[in-house]
C-alpha cells in the first residue's frame, strides 16, 4: 500500500507467508488483512479503514496464526515471513461469532426503519456469520437525553448529521477520521464501558468542512445525513460516476439518482488514491443540490422594454442572431467578446473559444472571472509557474512541504488533506508561509506569518538565507544578489517581519529535503503583483533545484481551469497551442487580444459592444463591482447563460438556461493535467442545455457550424490536449522588481477575500446543505483585533473601503492573529467585491461597530 506507516523496517522489500494454504508475497509492512485481500481472501472488518491507522478495536477480523497462542486481529498484525495464517477455522469462526454476538447485544435491530438498511456492514455480516437466536435476555441499553421526545435516539449533532447512539458499534472510524485525516475535534467518544458513546464535543456542532465523510464511513446507521435519510432506499437508486465541479482536483464521486424522478439523492466518494483517497469535502458532497434546487432557470429570458420575460429557445436564438449580427456589421466582429466559467467541461469551453474566434474573428475572450489584472499571454514568470507539472499523490511522499500564499482549507481542501496525511503518516516536515495564520499550520513545523504585501521579500529572504548559510550548490548563485533587493537576509527578514533564524530553518529544510513539494496558491494568483512574486519563486526554484527534486507550482483553482489553459480559452494561448489551433482551424484571427480586465475597460469605452457570458458571474466575483456593472451596462447586447438568475444575468438582454455538470457527460482536466470523465447522471432539467449545445445552436444561426460531428469536436480536443503546455523555466536568475504598495490613510486593515470552507464561488449558495453550514457572509478577524474595536462575536460590523461599504456580522477567528480581515465572497447578500479596487495590491479597509 502506498501509505504504510513504517517503511523503514529494513531488510527485503517483501515477505512471503501462507494464508489458507495459498502462498502470497506482499510488500513488507502489509498487514495480514491486506495480504489476504490481495489474493481475494475476504476477512470481515468493522473498524479497519484503508486510510486510517489500524486500532484493532472491533475484533471481527480474527485469524489464527500458527505458533501464536491466541487469535490475532488481522487488520493490525503485520505480515511476517513464514507466517501460516488460517482465516476460516472453527476457532476463528467462533471468535467472529462471539464478536457479532457482543455487538448485537445492545444493537436495536431496527433495520426496517434504519436508513442504512441495504448497505449496512453489520446487517450483511450478521446474515453471513451471525447467530439466528440471541442469548441476551436483558433490556437493551438505550441512550436517551432529557430533551428527547421520541423513543428513537435521533440526535442532530451537526447541520447535516443525525446521530443514533443505539446503533453505534463503536468502531471509532468517525472519531479517528476526524482526527487523523481532517485534524478536527468536533466529535469524540464520551463515557466508558458499554455506555461509551460517540457524540459532538461539548457545546459544539459537528460542522467541519469534511464532516460528510463521517457519515459515509460509518459502517452502520449511527450517523446519517439529513439530505439523504428517509428520502429513498439505497436499492432504488442507481449510481453514476462523476467528478466534483467545485474543486480543481477533480475529486471522484458517485451520484445516487433515481431516473423517473430525474433526481439526485446524494453523493459518495469513488475512491481514487491518486487524487482523493476517498475523502470528500462537504462542498463536493453537497454541491449536487446546486443542480437539484428548485430555483433553477426554467426558460430563456428576453429583455423587452427593460424587463426580462420568458421566451422560447427559438425566439431567444433569433434575437441573439439579429443583435450580434447588427454589431458585427456595424462595428466589426472584434467588438464582440466573451467570458466563460473555468468550471465548464472541455467541450463547452472549446466550443466557446472556437465560436468567438471563428465566427467573429475575435480574440477578446477569457475564462478568468475573479482575478484582477491577469496577464493576457504566457510570456511571464507567473504563467511559467502555473504551467508546471504537479502530482497530488506526490504530496504524500514528500519529506518537505511548503505552502505559500495559500489557505489550503479554503482553496484546495483535497490537497489540504494530503498535506495533513504527509505529516501524520509520513512525518513530513511542513512549513506554512502566508500573510495571515491558516489552519494548515497545525501540522507545520514552522508557521511564518509575513507582513501583508511582502510576499516576494519573504521568498527573497529564504534565498538569501541559503546564500548566506552556504546551503546550496547552484553554480550561478552569486548572480542572485544582483537581482533582488534588499540584498541581505537581515534586511529582508526585517522587512517581511519574520525572524532570520526561522527563515534559515526553512531554507535548510528546502536544501536538505529529498523530495520537496512547494505549493503556491490563490493569494498569489489573486495578487496584482503576481509577476513580481512569481519571479522571486522562479529564483527560489533555481537556487534550490526544487523542480528537479520535487514539485513547485501555483495550483489551478477551478474544476477545469487547466482545461481552459490547455484548450486555449485565454486571449493569447501558449505559442505551441496557437500553432496547433492554427493547423486545426486553418488559420487564427490576428486581431487584438484582451483579457477580462481590458475587456471591461473597453466595454466602458463602448469599444466592445456585444458580449457572451457562459456560467460566469463577474458582477459577483470581479473586483470593483460598480465598475463591472457599469461596463456591462454599456454593452449594446449581452447574452448570459447560467443555471440561475444572478447579478450578471440581471443585466443581460438574453438569458439562457445552462445545464449543470451532472446533466451532461463531459471531460475535465484537473490541476495535475489529468483528464477525467464525468458521466451524465440526469437529463437536463427544465429547458436547460449544455454549453456546447447552446453554442452549436447559436453557431447554426450564423450558418457557421462549429463541428460537423461530435467526433470531430472530440478529435480536435484530443489534438489540443496532446500539446505540451509546460513553459520552460527562465535561463538564469530573474530580476525581482520592487512593488509599489499604496497605503490608504484611515484604512488600516488589509482585507483578504476568501471562500468559506463550505462554499466555493457564486453557486454553492444554492445548495441547502451547504447553507446549513454557513448561510451568511461574515468578517473574520483576530480576537485581539476585535477587542481593540470593542467588538464581540456576532456584532454587526461596518466594513468600508474608499469605494464602498458592506455590513456583516463578526466572527472571531480561531487562527488569525494579525491586522487582517477575511471576508467570504460567496454570498449574494454581501457583495464584498464592491469594496475592492481593480488596481490595488492590498485592499485596505476600516471597520466600525454598527449601533444597535
Amino acid at each position: 500500500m502506498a501509505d504504510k506507516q513504517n517503511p523503514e523496517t529494513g531488510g527485503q522489500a517483501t515477505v512471503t507467508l501462507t494464508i489458507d494454504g495459498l502462498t502470497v508475497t506482499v510488500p513488507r509492512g502489509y498487514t495480514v488483512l491486506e495480504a489476504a485481500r490481495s489474493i481475494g481472501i475476504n476477512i470481515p472488518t468493522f473498524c479497519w479503514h484503508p486510510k486510517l491507522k489500524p486500532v484493532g478495536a472491533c475484533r471481527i477480523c480474527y485469524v489464527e496464526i500458527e505458533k501464536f497462542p491466541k487469535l490475532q486481529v488481522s487488520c493490525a498484525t503485520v505480515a511476517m515471513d513464514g507466517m501460516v495464517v488460517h482465516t476460516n477455522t472453527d476457532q476463528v469462526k467462533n471468535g467472529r461469532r462471539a464478536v457479532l454476538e457482543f455487538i448485537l447485544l445492545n444493537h436495536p435491530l431496527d433495520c426496517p426503519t434504519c436508513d442504512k438498511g441495504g448497505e449496512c456492514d453489520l446487517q450483511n455480516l450478521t446474515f453471513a456469520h451471525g447467530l439466528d437466536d440471541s442469548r441476551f435476555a436483558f433490556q437493551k441499553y438505550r441512550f436517551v437525553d432529557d430533551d428527547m421526545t421520541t423513543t428513537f435516539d435521533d440526535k442532530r449533532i451537526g447541520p447535516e448529521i443525525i446521530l443514533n447512539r443505539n446503533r453505534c458499534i463503536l468502531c471509532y472510524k468517525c472519531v479517528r477520521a476526524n482526527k487523523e485525516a481532517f485534524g478536527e475535534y468536533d466529535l469524540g467518544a464520551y463515557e466508558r464501558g458499554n455506555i461509551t458513546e460517540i457524540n459532538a464535543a461539548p457545546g459544539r456542532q459537528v460542522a467541519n468542512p469534511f464532516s460528510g465523510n463521517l457519515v459515509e464511513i460509518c459502517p452502520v446507521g449511527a450517523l446519517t445525513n439529513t439530505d439523504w435519510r428517509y428520502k429513498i432506499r439505497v436499492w432504488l437508486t442507481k449510481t453514476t460516476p462523476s467528478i466534483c465541479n467545485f474543486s480543481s482536483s477533480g475529486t471522484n464521486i458517485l451520484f445516487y439518482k433515481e431516473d423517473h424522478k430525474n433526481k439526485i439523492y446524494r453523493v459518495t466518494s469513488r475512491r481514487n488514491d491518486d487524487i482523493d483517497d476517498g475523502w470528500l469535502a462537504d462542498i463536493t458532497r453537497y454541491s449536487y443540490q446546486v443542480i437539484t434546487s428548485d430555483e433553477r432557470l426554467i426558460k430563456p429570458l428576453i429583455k423587452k422594454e427593460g424587463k426580462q420575460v420568458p421566451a422560447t429557445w427559438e425566439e431567444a436564438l433569433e434575437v441573439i442572431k439579429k443583435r450580434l449580427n447588427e454589431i458585427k456589421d456595424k462595428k466589426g466582429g472584434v467588438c464582440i467578446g466573451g467570458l466563460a466559467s473555468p468550471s465548464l467541461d472541455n467541450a463547452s469551453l472549446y466550443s466557446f473559444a472556437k465560436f468567438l474566434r471563428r465566427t467573429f474573428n475575435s480574440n477578446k475572450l477569457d475564462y478568468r472571472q475573479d482575478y484582477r489584472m491577469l496577464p493576457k499571454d504566457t510570456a511571464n514568470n507567473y504563467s511559467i509557474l502555473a504551467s508546471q507539472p504537479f502530482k497530488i499523490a506526490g504530496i504524500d511522499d514528500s519529506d518537505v512541504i511548503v505552502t505559500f500564499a495559500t489557505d489550503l482549507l479554503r482553496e484546495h481542501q483535497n490537497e489540504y488533506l494530503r498535506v495533513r496525511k504527509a505529516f501524520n503518516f509520513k512525518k513530513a516536515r511542513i512549513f506554512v508561509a502566508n500573510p495571515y495564520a491558516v489552519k494548515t499550520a497545525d501540522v507545520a513545523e514552522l508557521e511564518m506569518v509575513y507582513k501583508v504585501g511582502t510576499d516576494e521579500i519573504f521568498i527573497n529572504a529564504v534565498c538569501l538565507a541559503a546564500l548566506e548559510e552556504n546551503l546550496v550548490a547552484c553554480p550561478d548563485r552569486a548572480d542572485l544578489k544582483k537581482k533582488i533587493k534588499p540584498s541581505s537576509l537581515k534586511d529582508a527578514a526585517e522587512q517581511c517581519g519574520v525572524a532570520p533564524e526561522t527563515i534559515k530553518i526553512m531554507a535548510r529544510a528546502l536544501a536538505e529535503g529529498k523530495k520537496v513539494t512547494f505549493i503556491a496558491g490563490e493569494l498569489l494568483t489573486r495578487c496584482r503583483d503576481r509577476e513580481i512574486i512569481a519571479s522571486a519563486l522562479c529564483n527560489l526554484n533555481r537556487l534550490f533545484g526544487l523542480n528537479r527534486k520535487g514539485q513547485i507550482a501555483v495550483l489551478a483553482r477551478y474544476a477545469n481551469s487547466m482545461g481552459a489553459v490547455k484548450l486555449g480559452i485565454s486571449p493569447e494561448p501558449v505559442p505551441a497551442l496557437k500553432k496547433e489551433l492554427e493547423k486545426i482551424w486553418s488559420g487564427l484571427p490576428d486581431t487584438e487580444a484582451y483579457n477580462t480586465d481590458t475587456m471591461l475597460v473597453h466595454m466602458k469605452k463602448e469599444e466592445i459592444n456585444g458580449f457572451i457570458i457562459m456560467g460566469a458571474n463577474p458582477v459577483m466575483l470581479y473586483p470593483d463591482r460598480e465598475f463591472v456593472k457599469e461596463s456591462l451596462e454599456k454593452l449594446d447586447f449581452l447574452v448570459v447563460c447560467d443555471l440561475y438568475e444572478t447579478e450578471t444575468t440581471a443585466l443581460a438582454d438574453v438569458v439562457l438556461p445552462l445545464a449543470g455538470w451532472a446533466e451532461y457527460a463531459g471531460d475535465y482536466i484537473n490541476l495535475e493535467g489529468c483528464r477525467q470523465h464525468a458521466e451524465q447522471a440526469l437529463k437536463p432539467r427544465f429547458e436547460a442545455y449544455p454549453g456546447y449545445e447552446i453554442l452549436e445552436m447559436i453557431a447554426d444561426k450564423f450558418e457557421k457550424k462549429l463541428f460537423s460531428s461530435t467526433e470531430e469536436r472530440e478529435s480536435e480536443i484530443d489534438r489540443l490536449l496532446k500539446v505540451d503546455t509546460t513553459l520552460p523555466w527562465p535561463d538564469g536568475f530573474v530580476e525581482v522588481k520592487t512593488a509599489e504598495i499604496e497605503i490608504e490613510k484611515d484604512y488600516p486593515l488589509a482585507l483578504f477575500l476568501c471562500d468559506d470552507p463550505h462554499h466555493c464561488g457564486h453557486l454553492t449558495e444554492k445548495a441547502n446543505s451547504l447553507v446549513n453550514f454557513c448561510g451568511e457572509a461574515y468578517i473574520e478577524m483576530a480576537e485581539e483585533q476585535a477587542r481593540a474595536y470593542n467588538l464581540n462575536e456576532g456584532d454587526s460590523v461596518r466594513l468600508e473601503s474608499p469605494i464602498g461599504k458592506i455590513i456583516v456580522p463578526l466572527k472571531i477567528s480561531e487562527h488569525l492573529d494579525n491586522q487582517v480581515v477575511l471576508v467570504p465572497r460567496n454570498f449574494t447578500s454581501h457583495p464584498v467585491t464592491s469594496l475592492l479596487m481593480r488596481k490595488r495590491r492590498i485592499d485596505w479597509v476600516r471597520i466600525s461597530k454598527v449601533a444597535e
Partner: protein
Amino acid sequence: MFYSPVITNAAEAVKNEKLHLFRFVEDSEQVKIGTYEAHGGYQAWKKALTSMQPAQIVEEVKKSGLRGRGGAGFPTGMKWSFIPKDSPKPRYLICNADESEPGTCKDRVLMERDPHAVIEGMAIAAYAIGCHRMFIYIRGEFNHSIIRLETAVKEAYAHKHLGKNIYGTGYDLDMVVHSGGGAYICGEETALLNSLEGERGMSRIRPPFPAIEGLYACPTIVNNVETLASVPHIINRGADWYRTLGTEKSSGTKIFSLSGHVKRPGNYEVELGFNLKKLIYDPAYGGGILGDKKIKGVIPGGSSTPFLKADMLDVNLDYESLAQAGSMLGSGAVIVFHEDTCIVWVILKLIHFYRHESCGKCTPCREGTGWLEQIIGRIEAGGGKPGDIELIEDVCGNILGRTICPLGDAAVMPIQSAIKHWRDEWQFHIDNKKCMVKTNFEFR
C-alpha cells in the same frame, strides 16, 4: 503534615536492613529534602550520573533481577534495554502513579511519605535510557501525593538534583508532575500515554511497544512507582546485594497491601517469597481474621488476579510460587475474604468495577463485561437461570485473550477462578434464589 492513616511495618524496616523501601516512611521529616539527603538520599543519583555509564546502570538493574511492581512483573532492566540505541528522537520516562487497582495502595504511601525516593529512582532510570524530560502520572484523586510530589520536585530543582547541568556533568533533566484523568484504565501504560498526550484514555494496540513508539511516538519507558523507588538502593548497594533479598528468581522486597477481613489491614514490605499465611495471621502483619472466622479465599495480587481457596494459602508470595498456585503476584494487593462472604456478591462488585472502567475500545471487553454484570447481577438478586454458569463461562472465554489490553483478562480471571473454586455456591444461588452463606458482609 497530612498522612493517610495506613498501618505499615516501618518499625520493622528500621531494624531490618533488608527492608529498604519502608525504612523512613514513619519519619514525618522524610518528605523534606534535607532529611532525605541526611538519610543518604540522592547519593545513588549522584553516583549513577557522575561515575556510571547508562549501559552500566541498565546492566546493574538487569543483574539485580528487579521486576516491575506495577502488575505484569516484567524484568525492569530488560525493558530499559529495549530503547532503540540509535533513534534521533527524544526519549521519555514515565512513572506510573495511577494506582487504581482495587486493593492496591502501596504507591500512595511511597509518594506521600518518601517522595524524593521516587524522584531519585526516576532520575536514575531517566539517565539510563537517555531521557531529559520525565513525567510522573499521578492518579487524579491522589491530592496529597500530587502536592507532595510537586513540593518535592521544587526542592529537588532547588538542590540541583534536577534541572540543567546536574552535578556539573552537563546532563539536563526536567520533571513534570501530571495529574491523571481519573480512570482505572489510565494506569494501563498505553492508555496512560494517550491521556498524557491529551487524548481520551484508551489503550493502544501493541506493537508498536512504548519502548519503540510511546509518548508522542517517541521511545518511552513506563515504570511503576515501587519499581522506580527500588532503583536507588540497587545502585547504592549493588545488584549482588539486591539478589540476596527474596528468592532465587524473585529477588528483592515487595510491598503488599493487605485488606479485607483481616484485623490489621495495611502495607507491609517483606522479602519476596514471604509466606501468605504468615502475612495474614502473624500479629506483626495481618494479625488474623476479623472475628476469628475462617478464611474463605484470598485474592493475592490485586482484583485482577485469580482467587486462592482457603486450602491454598500456604503459598509463598513470589512470582513463581503464585503462578504455580494458579494465580499471580500482580500489584501485590492481598484481599482476604472470610467464610461469611457471598462469592457471587463479591464477583458482582468486581465485574461492576471492570464494566465501569472498561475503556470502551474493544468489543469483547466493552460488551462482555456489561453482559456479565447483568447475568451475575440477576443471579445475585435471586433471578438466576439454569445454564447461567455455563453462559458466564462461555462469555468469559470469549473475552479472555481476545482483547487489546489486559483489562479484559483482568475482568474475567477472578470470575473464572471463583466459579472453579465455588461452583456449588453459584449453583445454590441459582437453584434456591438465595445465598448459601448467611450474611452479605459489607466489608470495610
